[in-house]
């Protein structure tokens, strides 16, 4: 039976987020002190040795990313926390922001020291005003106590666009421009905010940092999946009994999450599929539930870990309906910059509506497949590249849902 392991959520419910003294009493900011005493390359090596990979979806090695920014020569560098959390069904970052804001500040300050930055930004989802207020209070208290040294942090509120979670669109947005992704390379660690070397990490990624310094890289690397060590905070929704959050080591299987911690499906129904990673995640059929929720394990079956959202669908769900709703979401959230995403997301939605209205032909399914293939390999940014994956996986595993509607 799988069990929770609260590393990222270590202080949840245990401290008052609005009292920095609570955090200090729990050993808070000791890791930052330790980091400030370390030489920068040792510090980055420690993060590399922990094998910590990004929790925002792309799974990039955190220490390597920091190293690029540390190596870059510049008069100014920036640390940005991606707290845009735009994936429907995901609220793990909010849990952290609202319950342990100082752990985030500590992680960011350690990063700032490692790369040589003195300014940080927290780009907070616009729909999280309460979290933003808590963050501001936490920053004020940390400044008051002087625990952050010369590292300054500002909170910026997003305006609700999903694409602004993409790191370069996020940077554009902080710069006051429309949230559209930038051409890469150059990548942010080389040229990011205002053209300066910039680290963008997810909330959950940063919160792991103080723990790694406290307990050591080897300790951390031994937890969970060897290629994506540590834990992952999952948020369960859909036809599952316990619609709540769990933090588990990354070796935990999907089955353990749903039937163990999640308490199985509601109303005694059978599972049809589970979508992991948010709206852009693939649908996983019942016969693949023994896959671990590690980054590479999920990639191997054509799925993603993404944000860690777990959306459970029972046997009565129709994927033609579900994917049509998802397609509308992406058509609405495409920024409109590149052709495959701008036109593709809209057409995908149109064709699915047509099929659901009983007007689809077999050729429409073939066209959807081709469109999905092209969008995923030719779109400008991750949004258009990932947008087709729910549909593509549904067409692969549940073709009958679509064929039944054809005319």
């Amino acid at each position, binding site marked *: 039976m799988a069990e929770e392991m609260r590393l990222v959520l270590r202080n949840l419910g245990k401290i008052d987020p609005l009292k920095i003294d609570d955090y200090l009493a729990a050993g808070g900011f000791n890791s930052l002190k330790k980091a400030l005493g370390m030489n920068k390359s040792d510090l980055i090596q420690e993060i590399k040795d922990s094998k910590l990979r990004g929790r925002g979806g792309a799974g990039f090695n955190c220490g390597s990313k920091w190293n690029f920014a540390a190596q870059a020569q510049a008069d100014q560098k920036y640390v940005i926390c991606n707290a845009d959390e735009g994936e429907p069904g995901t609220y793990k970052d909010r849990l952290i922001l609202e319950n342990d804001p100082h752990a985030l500040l500590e992680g960011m300050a350690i990063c700032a020291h490692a790369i040589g930055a003195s300014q940080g930004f927290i780009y907070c989802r616009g729909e999280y005003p309460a979290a933003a207020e808590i963050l501001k209070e936490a920053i004020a208290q940390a400044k008051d106590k002087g625990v952050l040294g010369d590292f300054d942090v500002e909170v910026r509120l997003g305006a609700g666009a999903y694409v602004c979670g993409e790191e370069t669109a996020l940077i554009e947005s902080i710069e006051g421009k429309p949230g559209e992704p930038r051409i890469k390379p150059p990548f942010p660690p080389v040229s990011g905010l205002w053209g300066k070397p910039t680290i963008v990490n997810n909330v959950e990624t940063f919160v792991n940092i103080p723990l790694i310094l406290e307990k050591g890289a080897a300790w951390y690397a031994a937890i969970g999946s060897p290629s994506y060590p540590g834990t992952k905070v999952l948020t369960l929704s859909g036809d599952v009994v316990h619609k709540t959050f769990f933090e588990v080591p990354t070796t935990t299987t999907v089955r353990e999450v749903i039937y163990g911690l999640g308490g199985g499906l509601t109303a005694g129904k059978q599972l049809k599929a589970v979508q992991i990673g948010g709206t852009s995640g693939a649908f996983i059929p019942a016969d693949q539930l023994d896959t671990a929720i590690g980054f590479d394990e999920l990639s191997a079956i054509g799925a993603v870990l993404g944000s860690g959202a777990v959306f459970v669908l029972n046997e009565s769900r129709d994927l033609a309906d579900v994917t049509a709703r998802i397609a509308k979401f992406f058509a609405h959230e495409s920024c409109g910059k590149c052709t495959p995403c701008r036109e593709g997301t809209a057409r995908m939605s149109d064709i699915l509506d047509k099929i659901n209205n009983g007007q689809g032909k077999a050729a429409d399914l073939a066209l959807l497949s*081709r469109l999905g293939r092209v969008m995923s390999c030719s*779109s400008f940014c991750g949004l258009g590249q990932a947008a087709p994956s729910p549909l593509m996986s549904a067409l692969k595993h549940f073709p009958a849902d679509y064929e039944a509607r054809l005319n």
Partner: protein
Amino acid sequence: MPNITIDGIKVAVPEGSTILQAAQEAGVNIPTLCHHPDQSVKANCRICVCEVAGSNLLQAACSQPATEGMNVKTRSPKVLEARKTILELILANHPQDCLNCLRNENCELQSLAAEYCIRDNPFELKVRGLGKDLSTPALFRDPDKCVLCRRCIEACSVIQTVNALGIEYRGQKAMVVPTLGKNLIDSPCIMCGQCIHACPVGAIGEIEEIDELLAAIADPETVVVTQIAPAVRLALGEEVGMPTGDLPMDVLVAGLRQIGFDHVLHTNFTADLTIMEEGHELLKRLKEGGKLPMFTSCSPGWTSFCETFFPDLLDNLSTCKSPQQMFGALVKTYWADKMNIPASKIFSVSIMPCTAKKYEASRPEMQSSGFRDVDLVLTTREIGRLFRMSGLDFEKLAPADFSPWMSKYTGAGVIFGASGGVMEAALRTVYEVVTGETLADVNFTAVRGFEGIKEATVNLKGTEVKVAIAHGLGNARKVMEQVRAGESPYHFIEIMACPGGCIGGGGQPITKTNKKRLERIQAVYEEDQACAVRKSHLNTEVQELYKDFLHEPLGHKSHELLHTHYQAKDKKFL
């Protein structure tokens, strides 16, 4: 020098090259749509995607750097499927009215559709139905045709710094819109038409007025007279399949006569006249302590720009009308008298490399003759279309002569077509007027060429005159900011709205790269070189005009007919 392999061909390319540049090196043709060789990389159309070994994602050739050992496939099945699908997606929103389009047969999207054999588009045709914007007298926009490449936005905001166009809305609703209002006329647009050259399709173009001309020609009571601007001849040949510069002037005149123009005259004549007026204006300002530096005023895109963004510096603008408008004022007064034709019967047409001239001719103050001075402005492109329509064979056409009194010109008038030309023409005349000596060498090469801002100093018998030349309004803005700050060292500044000057004007044959502009500049100086007389003050027809009619530069008649005033535009643009 990274070594890369493209479709099996090995090439070494300079550090920092893109896959697209490497492919050009290797002789491999990769299609593009949003890419423009003189603009920044946009990578938004995704037509140029290629397969790069080691990546599941296709990479945009226009933006992806070529790195050591890279192995690129530009025509694999995966690539072709992507390109074809992307084209189908674009075309499924695009009005299928190529036959009626201004850019028929000269459209990047149309060419791509042909190359990729787009036949039965599986995506349902859904045109947005936004309708055309016909709010300005010079340019129209047809946003239904827009492919959102954003090249027009860069031309307008980066090259011209006018910022009349921007992006609004997201996703499939995204569109290019005029800034500050619903229609182009509400924006700070100065109608230079550089967006037309940037547009790969027919989403922006000149207001076409061919039918108005044909109606005038069809009316037996009307005497249709035309002037031809200096930059027209050398580019017009391009429209009828000739190399730049190769269409001879007398054949062009014959062609216009064939179309039905009753009299063909030349704007070069008033270009020479402009030098007489503007040269004396400069000397007067220098002598009497008038506002300096003085700016040239031949380019209506530029004068609008000054009225819009630098209204505090309008007194620095020369009061001289542009050669087009000087011509218009004279053709219905002086020339009408000489020819004994009632001014009321004259329909005065001007053939221009310029879209802003359509606007200029419509300005209410441009009626010094008692009539609208210039009745109709047609661009080089429109005349090109008329030539094709009339099926003329320029190889066989017998040469014809201009009508008299306003068609003689010198090399100084010719070079008005290129950036630096007005300055050089002015210096040739001013030097001789002031010093009373003959110039040893009429070629002021320092003021020629494509560099954004050029400068020179000329010694007029002890008086140093410092001059500067800017072309493209982004460059003009830099020079103007200096003037505004009181830090300009110059006495006389030539500004042309369009990059390269009139040869790159918004009404010229669609100019895909600056390389074409350089070719045309070369043709301008060749024509100047071939002229027997190369100084405006030696133009005998101009001398006669002064003797018989104007009497002296800056005289009473000149002020009435050849000079104008400017008006600050709406402050919200500042």
